[in-house]
């Protein structure tokens, strides 16, 4: 079998629950050794897509090939080459971290020696050695997620599905998770990741597919998508109205909005490192004191606003 350039190829995925049409002809292709992020609000069909691709859910229409194997007719072959990290940490709570890893390794049909050695290696890689022999119900959310990801890597499958791997994690755990995921891609793993966060897709993925209402509404690299959404905005506040007037003259066209009551100006910036420094240098030269400074990044809502012309209605404010 000649290996195709695309490891994951989904065509025209259709899935409905009664009148609820979750997927309406979704197409997806992931190139070998790259990471694709599936970006969309809650209810867009992200998890349903992952569940179909990982053989957990039967499809109503369309076709999926994973490494050339059909998910409907060759599920067992598919299961040999994939690893899945779902939304709820799928680890056994009464078993220890190590027991979880070894058990899953054995179920992937690794020999006992291999599973044990690989478990130790993963515990070290994921900073879990101290907690290795405690039942996982004593783990923190971040530790559980790390173990969960480690479990799906136990047999080093070439394809990994990550369903919202950082939802509900604190910022530090999220950064740690990003580091781990980046390393996986460097090692040549093909990854399909779903997320509600534009920033996460931006940080990690080679390509991003934006879905809404069970369809692809945009795709491209992070840069391509962001250019469609708009640029970062810098909001600066000053001590007085005179300062604001000077600033307007000084920065000219870059100022897109001003607020005369709060003496603040909003600027569009291209490069957060260079442009912010430039602006601050200019202000310093004129001895204008800045009282506050804030950079606004385009959000998922901005993507939606620009792509669909409407606010993403189903975006859950609590989680987003």
């Amino acid at each position, binding site marked *: 079998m000649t290996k195709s350039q695309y490891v994951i190829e989904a065509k025209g995925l259709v899935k409905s629950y009664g009148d609820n049409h979750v997927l309406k002809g979704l197409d997806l292709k992931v190139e070998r050794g790259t990471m694709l992020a599936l970006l969309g609000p809650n209810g867009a069909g992200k998890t349903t897509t992952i*569940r179909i691709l*990982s*053989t*957990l*859910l*039967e499809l109503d229409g369309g076709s999926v090939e994973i490494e050339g194997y059909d998910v409907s007719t060759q599920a*067992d072959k598919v*299961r*040999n080459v*994939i*690893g*899945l990290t*779902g*939304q*709820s*940490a*799928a*680890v*056994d709570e*009464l*078993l220890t971290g190590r*027991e979880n890893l070894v*058990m*899953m390794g*054995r*179920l*992937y*049909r*690794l*020999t006992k*020696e*291999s599973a044990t*050695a*690989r478990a130790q*290696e993963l515990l070290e890689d994921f900073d879990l050695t101290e907690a290795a022999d405690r*039942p996982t119900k004593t783990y923190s959310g971040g530790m559980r997620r790390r173990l969960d990801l480690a*479990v*799906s890597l136990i*047999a*080093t499958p070439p394809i990994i599905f990550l369903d919202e791997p950082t939802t509900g994690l604190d910022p530090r755990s999220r950064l740690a998770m990003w580091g781990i995921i980046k390393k996986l891609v460097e*090692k040549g793993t093909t990854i399909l990741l779903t997320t509600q966060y534009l920033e996460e897709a931006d940080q990690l993925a080679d390509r991003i597919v934006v879905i809404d209402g069970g369809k692809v509404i945009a795709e491209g690299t992070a840069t391509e998508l962001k250019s469609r959404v708009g640029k970062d905005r810098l909001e600066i506040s000053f001590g007085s109205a005179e300062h604001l007037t000077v600033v307007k003259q000084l920065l000219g066209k870059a100022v897109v909005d001003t607020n005369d009551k709060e003496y603040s100006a909003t600027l569009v910036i291209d490069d957060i490192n260079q442009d912010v420094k430039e602006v601050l240098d200019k202000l310093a030269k004129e001895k204008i004191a800045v009282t506050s400074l804030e950079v606004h990044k385009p959000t998922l809502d901005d993507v939606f606003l620009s792509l669909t012309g409407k606010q993403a209605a189903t975006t859950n404010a609590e989680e987003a």
Partner: protein
Amino acid sequence: MATQLIFEQKPKFILDLQDSLIMIRRSCTHIIRNADQLLGTFFQPIMFLVLFATVFGGAIKGSLPPGVSYLDFLMAGIIVQTASFGSTTTAIAVCNDLQKGIIDRFRSLPMSNLAVLNGHVISDLLRNTISTLVMIVTGLVIGFRSHSGGLAWLEITGILLLFTLSFSWLAAIVGVVAKSVEAVQWLTFIIIFPLTFASSAFVPTESMTPVLKAFATHQPITQVVEAVRALMLGTPIGNYGWNTLAWSLGILVVSVPLASWLFSRKGTK
């Protein structure tokens, strides 16, 4: 990546068997690490046996065959009752697994589909065996005596294992179908409670109303109780042994494929 991974190169059926062994070990670990369950395994049988023997003993004594003490009569009944109540554990464990993300993990692995259910059913069988032994020892301490020989006890062991296995598979169906652990408890309660109490487990059926007596005489629990009792007391076993065998095998033939089929379908639609 230092470790060179080596995969098992065995025939598929051996690997599938190995999966079941791994899952049995998992379920047994659950039982050992779950303090409530462990307590139930050891103390519930003692409590039931002592309570029934002392509370009902005096009142029921008169309606028993001459020369048979209530404790000797009760022993078979209470063992079967404990085994059938114990099958609830299988239902709860299966339901628990299905509620959690871990089932998706198992399903996304190249493992045998039946292994998860096998794990719960077999570990439950082991747990029930321990409960039964505890009960027999307790019985001996408070005065239970059997004059049957080794062969009879071998038959008792076989009957109880087969019956418990079949009931656990029945419970596995409940575990797959039920939407929550609470629902499992209700479902098993309304099935198992009437079956065990409207039987000859605790009292002779002679004093029951005709309708109840007809039910009690023919339902499976009574067959098992009577078979075990006859073997324990050395009285004629009649058809009870064959009936027990027929019921247990019948339940197994239906419930193993049904539970497996329901389990593999659950959540994939």
